[in-house]
């Protein structure tokens, strides 16, 4: 299991467009990916859940990756949060 915290730097949080990208990215892997903020957590496979999750700019979220390809999955997600999210 890999767990990592991210500060959402994109002011508008995770909106429909980045959410679409993120879900498609996670689908490439077998690992289960969980997004957690405070006591709320969701599976990172549902755009409905991501949007209602309501991660805003400035929030810190925890991403938990578990499964056989968790290292690769976590690296890919890491790139998304650090580089791609703010450009989407």
């Amino acid at each position: 299991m890999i767990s990592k915290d991210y500060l959402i730097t994109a002011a508008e949080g995770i909106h429909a467009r980045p959410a679409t990208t993120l879900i498609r990215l996670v689908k490439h892997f077998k690992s289960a990916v969980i997004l957690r903020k405070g006591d709320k957590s969701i599976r990172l496979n549902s755009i409905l859940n991501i949007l209602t999750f309501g991660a805003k700019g400035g929030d810190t979220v925890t991403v938990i990756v578990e499964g056989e390809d968790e290292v690769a999955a976590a690296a890919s997600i890491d790139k998304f949060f650090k580089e791609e999210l703010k450009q989407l």
Partner: protein
Amino acid sequence: MDNLNYKSGVAEIKGVGASPGIAIGNAFRFRKEVVRATELKLSDDSEVKREIEKFDAAVNISVRDVKQVIERDSSLNREVVDVLESHLEFITDPQLRSDVVSRITDHKMFAIDSVVKVIELTTVAFNDLDSDYMRARAADVQDIGERILRNLSYSYSGKLEINENSILIAEDISPSDTIALDLSKVMGFATQLGSRTSHTAILARSKNIPAVLGCGEILASVNDGDLLIVDGLNGIVHVNPPAHLLRYYRERKEAHERQADALKSLRHHLAVTADGRQIKLLANISSADDLEDSFEYGAMGAGLFRTEMLFMNRTSFPSEQRQFECYKQVGVKSRGKEVTIRTMDIGGDKPLDYFEIPREDNPFLGYRGVRISLDRRDVFITQLRAILRASIFGNFRIMFPMISGLEELLAAKSMVEEAKSQLKTEQLEFDRQIPLGIMIEVPSAAIVADILAPEADFFSIGTNDLCQYTLAVDRGNEKIKSLYEPLNPAVLRLISFVIDAARQNNIDVGMCGEFAADPKSTLLLIGMGLHEFSMSASSIPRVKNVILNHTEAKAREIWRNVKTMRRTDSIIKYLEALI
């Protein structure tokens, strides 16, 4: 329109002209099929299994439909594609499926009922969230829900049958609806809701379908089959027009189409007068896509890039990175041509959701344009940094709106210096020679143009505001809008003075208001010494046509004559007779 005598009582509906052109056809009301829950229960487990299979099949068909639209329709622009891509994720959402399946299994509900219920609950949940953005997404959920339902119901039979020559009227049209519609038979759109930036507007423009949106409730009174004229330029829908009006519009439509073909072929010619004066014709744009379109019309670059779109439909100010990406894209697509970026020009009349401007009695005389930028230095610096960083990708100029005097110009310039020195410290690249100029749209700035010119690299005359401030006429006010006329001698004197001041100081001067796109005024402006015109791209060929067929000598003579005229109506008459 001016030579037209309206009979009173002709039904004329006003809306927003969201896609130009004229369409004449019969009203075809687009009714969404509303599927209601049946409340029936499934009787056994085999039915449960069958309903789940039906749901999965409907999802698959829906996915296929959306993918086909994205793949087959290359005319859709980026925004529409992004929306449809996200719809694919909504349709296949595992949470949606598990909610639907649990209703089928646990509550023995039909698939249709389950989807209706789940979509209803989800829409309510989205609407309850405290954000305009999320409430807008509720519409997306509704849209994909309807799509799945259409594919679940037996009655659904593929594309909606539309009669030839239809003007589609609807409350609103969603991206999905357009899939169910055979757009080849749709001559025009008229909707109750919507604005220039709504999905329907974007679609209509990308398909060249004339559209008038935001017509309001009154559109509901139009009957199927009514004869309609959609005037997408002026934002008017005529219902069952009298013969003379119909004839007038038919002629205009034909002339318009003939001319559009002929004029578009002019795009490879430079705009040069018959005696050799080259005139720069530029486009007013709001995005990189607009810029690409403008080259089709022969634009030599963009004389006005409005950055407001970047700030609208959001929940917070766009980040530097976000803005940088946008400006960079414009630079990349600019083919080395000059692009003049106007810094944020917002105000009380076009407020942003996330930036409260206290209610003002006179928003046009209020907190707006560069006045906001100089007050919210953080926001301004962010934008300037983004523009400067992107400047290495194109040939940019920076322009400040609403400058009313020297102090504001100097303050804005010092902010650019501040942004530049930040970037130098961070060792980030930018165009060190980037020209800084101003809009001349406030009368006080026009009157002291000779004081401003030595401090600016260029002027761009914004005639819309200059005219309304000079004449004290709000052209949105129906009662007095006829007083709004840039050919008023007072406005012409100001314009001429600004051009002279710029030329005496050897700086560039252009014009970016609607006046620049008026063919009857083209020669007059050239006669005043104006050599740079920026307008909506589709107007370029018409203006170019005037330039190609006349001389600069003639243009000078026209201005000499107009200068002696004392009445606005004589000036208009004189210019109309020339063309």
